[in-house]
């Protein structure tokens, strides 16, 4: 069973891991994920996200003499430091960069456009958990924002909640939980993944231990406690705090039903209030076993749901009127008829020409004119830009607004099984 699940995870990982430009030993300035104070200026040694394109967002720590290579050329870190967050940083690429890809086209005799300098740019952004989800190095299948936002909302996670997360994985959800909750207890049974995640949290200033050590000052943001643990065997209790007092549990495990009985131990969940659980499993059989375990352990209000999120992009569709097409056709017909008449005239003229036996060619003669009987290209009626390369939204043409769905959608991420429980009903006076 568990093997199958691992396989599913491996297959479903759609995007390749992006190149990461943070060195392992580096510790950027803390508070990368916290809202900045009013100055909002990028400083040296800040962790920033460099937005190159929709699918290419790179985390980066800025150094005085650092360089970053992108497809738009090399940017110096010093160009970024001192700018405001959200700044666009651009440069003209030199011509050999622009024309690099076109050299073989030239050989084939394709006409080259003017050797125009191309403007390339990047944006520098402050990390947010959602942007991080798009840019992070994938160690496992990750939980995307559509799912994670619903989980947060449905489990009513707010700044007072203690959240337990088993399966840290790539840490995408951990960042989102950490942003919204009071304290996050996260468990990972894979030792290397745990170390990588811990380092990442450390670099982002999110580790609770760093707050205790005085390295990070903000108690509200440094709230993650990470443990190397197989919760299915060893349960949830940790050394760092005596009583976890959890309010919400998120289980992203191959066999959540093995972990559920461990939640009954005193000290794990808050015993005197309503607590919530969410199990994240891709397969139906897992859901079935999970429901069985939840019922056996006294959880109620069990509901399984599936989240379907879709991304759309605003695009333009050319408005083509039938009347215009009719006009094009009648225009063509007219020219064709004219051409036929001209051809006859041409034939006649050529005959005359041969009969006359003149050696010099008179440019202004009828012959020339009849030979090139076509109307110039730009005088032709061409309402849809046929034969021209048209950019979407070209102002010479008429467009309507359309929404285009992304070409590949995630039709199934996982089933989310929610449940509720109150351990003791104690009346407060």
């Amino acid at each position: 069973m568990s093997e199958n699940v691992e396989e599913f995870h491996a297959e479903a990982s759609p995007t390749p891991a992006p190149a990461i430009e943070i060195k392992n030993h580096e510790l950027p300035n803390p508070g990368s994920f916290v809202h900045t104070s009013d100055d909002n200026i990028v400083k040296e040694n800040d962790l920033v996200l460099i937005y190159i394109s929709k699918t290419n967002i790179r985390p980066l720590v800025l150094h005085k003499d650092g360089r970053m290579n992108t497809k738009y050329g090399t940017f110096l870190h010093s160009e970024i430091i001192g700018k405001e967050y959200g700044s666009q940083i651009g440069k003209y690429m030199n011509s050999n960069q622009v024309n690099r890809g076109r050299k073989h086209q030239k050989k084939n005799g394709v006409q080259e456009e003017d050797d125009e300098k191309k403007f390339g740019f990047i944006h520098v952004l402050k990390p947010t958990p959602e942007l991080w989800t798009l840019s992070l190095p994938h160690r496992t299948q990750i939980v995307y924002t559509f799912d994670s936002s619903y989980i947060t909302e449905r489990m009513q996670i707010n700044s007072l909640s203690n959240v337990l997360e088993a399966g840290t994985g790539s840490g995408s959800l951990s960042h989102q939980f950490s942003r919204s909750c009071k304290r996050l207890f996260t468990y990972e049974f894979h030792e290397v993944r745990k170390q990588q995640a811990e380092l990442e949290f450390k670099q982002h200033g999110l580790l609770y231990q760093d707050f205790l050590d005085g390295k990070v000052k903000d108690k509200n943001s440094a709230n993650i406690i990470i443990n190397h643990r197989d919760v299915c065997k060893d349960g949830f209790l940790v050394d760092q705090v005596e009583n976890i007092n959890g309010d919400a549990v998120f289980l992203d495990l191959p066999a959540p039903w093995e972990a559920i009985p461990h939640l009954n131990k005193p000290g794990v969940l808050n015993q005197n209030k309503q607590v919530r659980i969410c199990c994240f499993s891709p397969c139906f059989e897992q859901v079935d076993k999970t429901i069985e375990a939840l019922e056996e352990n006294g959880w109620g209000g069990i509901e399984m749901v599936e989240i379907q999120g879709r991304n759309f992009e605003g695009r333009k569709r050319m408005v083509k009127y039938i009347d215009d097409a009719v006009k094009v056709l009648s225009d063509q017909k007219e020219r064709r008829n004219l051409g036929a008449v001209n051809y006859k005239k041409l034939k006649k003229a050529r005959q005359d020409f041969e009969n006359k036996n003149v050696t010099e060619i008179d440019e202004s003669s009828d012959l020339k004119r009849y030979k090139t009987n076509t109307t110039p290209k730009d005088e032709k009626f061409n309402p849809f830009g046929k034969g021209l390369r048209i950019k979407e939204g070209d102002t010479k043409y008429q467009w309507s607004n359309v929404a285009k769905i992304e070409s590949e959608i995630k039709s199934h991420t996982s089933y989310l099984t929610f449940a509720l429980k109150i351990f003791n009903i104690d009346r407060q006076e």
Partner: protein
Amino acid sequence: MAIDHITHIGKDNYIIIQLPNDLYKIYHTGTEVIHLGKYGSFYSKDIIGYPYGTVFDIAYDEKNDTADVVLNHNFTKKSKKEQQHQPGIIKPRLNDTSQTLEITEDILVENFNSESNKLLIDKGSEAQKLKTSDIELLKKNNVNTSKIIKNIITNNENFNLKTKQSQEKYLVRKFKKFSKCFKVERCSPQNILKFLMDKNDMIRINDISLESMGLQLNLSNIQSNGNYLLMDETGGFLIYSVLERMYGGREDDETKNGTITVITETEHPQLDLLKYSNYSEEFLKKTIKYLSVMEILKPQNEEEIAAEFKLLNQNLDINDLKKIEKDKLTPLQQRKLNWYNKQVQIYQISQNFNHYDAFVVQTDFELKDCIQRFHKFIKPGCPIVVFCKFREPLLDLSNEYLMKSNNYLNVKIMQTYCRPYQTKRGKIHPLMTMKSNGGWLLSCYRVLGIDPSDYI
């Protein structure tokens, strides 16, 4: 131990009560007796102090006095109402950790007695030998739920001929009708949403679904110490949801100091859903600032405010008023000074350019207008998240404005919906009906675009 108002039912709080037929109702624990219609009534002091999420049963003394019943055999509306007015005795389900309003296992097991429906003939209501009046009589005598159900079943000719599944469905239906129990939930935004959905009042909150709300809040990157600019056309629901993420109901945490600024259409915005949030007046006043569109777009500077003050107060100079010591001010003077201070504060807020950590929008205004005029208040690099019931306005916003400008990045239009399943082991399937429109979202980041020509 004092009552923790966030996790336990407190005095003078708004609560949501879930009934067995999945209806949600909002009540205030300050009222003496809470009436739940046919599900009975109870003294609200009896539930105070129990944790939210507790299921209570209402028990009545069973009447065995048949003579009394015969006398009152006319079931007019009035007599029904009289019955409601007698509060029953509240019993929380202490030994049940699951706390659901679903039918109890013992009622189910006791009553199953068939395997096949091959002999079933559909007779409609004739199959039931009990008349409506008989059932009303049982109800009036406060007969216990499982006994009523038993009675109905034994008098139903067809019940034994049904399949097990159909018997279960029948029992669940009867349980929903006759059981006297309810569940108390906190007035969290999530539960208010359920309440509104149930009341069919979703138009009030622009048809937003729980999943769209969650997505909007996540994309807006709500943190407990952020400052957020909001436009709320949902009667305070959006404000409450943001507040909930920031504070979670606790008012006295000094490390959290986030604020919300709301741009309103009118001078006195209608925020009736915010009252269910159980936050104190002072806290809301301290955390949320309201600015009308006029105040933010046509701000009066301090000189203009002073001039207006003079005009309104018979040539009284504000500086004269400021000179008077605080304890010597008359109440009238104090009021005037407060007015002045408030105007100055509004002016200061209207100058908060590049200040807010996110712009969260749910509005009826033309979206392009909103973004164009208010984007300068948002810190560069911070998200703008717009919710709209329909896709087309977002599309126009994206194509006609955001994509044409170089001041916005990563423009995305999103839709999310949650597909609920019937979650009974062996009978898992998607529910036959679900909500069709939970709205659309557009998210982008405000950035500082540059002009390529400056770079040559």
